[in-house]
């Protein structure tokens, strides 16, 4: 999704091979750095909501690692580690694409998103074209 946002077309199979994704097991978040092979710059770091807003405004894709909570649409009581592509930040809500949901994008209250993101130490990956 982050690559598509930057206009780079990659198949799910290519992506899974590059990231070493195992079905049902997932991917270590740090491996997102391997996206650099598609001529993008990737920076994995701890960030803030303000960072997300600033970098999105600069056309940089932002992937956030979260622990799912009932406050995130579509997850109910399932608690697991996940990654979402943030597309918009405003005063009260954060809008993001969730690859596990068949629909999207979805929005969550900033406080709810912060709870889910905070469980993963506010880790984010910022992806931009070189």
């Amino acid at each position, binding site marked *: 999704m982050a690559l598509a946002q930057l206009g780079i077309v990659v198949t799910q199979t290519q992506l899974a091979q590059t990231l070493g994704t*195992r*079905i*049902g097991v*997932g991917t270590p978040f*740090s491996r997102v750095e391997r996206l650099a092979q598609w001529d993008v710059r990737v920076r994995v770091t701890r960030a803030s909501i303000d960072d997300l807003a600033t970098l999105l405004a600069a056309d940089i894709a932002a992937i956030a*690692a979260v622990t799912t909570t009932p406050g995130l649409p579509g997850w109910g009581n399932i*608690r*697991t580690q996940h990654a979402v592509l943030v597309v918009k930040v405003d005063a009260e809500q954060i809008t993001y694409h969730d690859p*596990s949901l068949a629909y999207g994008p979805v929005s969550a209250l900033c406080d709810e998103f912060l709870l889910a993101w905070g469980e993963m130490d506010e*880790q984010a990956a910022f992806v931009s074209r070189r």
Partner: protein
Amino acid sequence: MGKPKRTREVGASYSALVTDLSHPIILERDGQPLAVLVSIEEYERYQTLLEEQQRMLSLEARRVADHAVFGDLVGCALSSGDAVWVPTPEPHWRVPYRSFDGRLLAVVEVDAHTHTVSLTDEERAALLERIERLTALNDVAA
């Protein structure tokens, strides 16, 4: 809670002791503290604090277990459940891990004092292989 009063007269009349419970009363026997008498309001406040503390400890145990099970994995089809308190023989928490369809796949124990997690590298690898197989089977069935 105010400064406690002390009484060596454990045998003192009950009504005399409880007339003023604005401060806790420490009952002593042979000069040693034996028990504390507090107002029901104080006792209920204490119980609430204990419950809140237990809830926070439960969340922390779950975080510790999640860290051991997931590491920095994202997209894993395992879900952790509420930690269950087990006081004996050694106090610990039991954290269940289920597939998204609710099947119990593992229970990870977290020592209440040391936060040591009872999950070896081999057990973690086996758990991840199991969820991988289950997810693949479900994908085929779907």
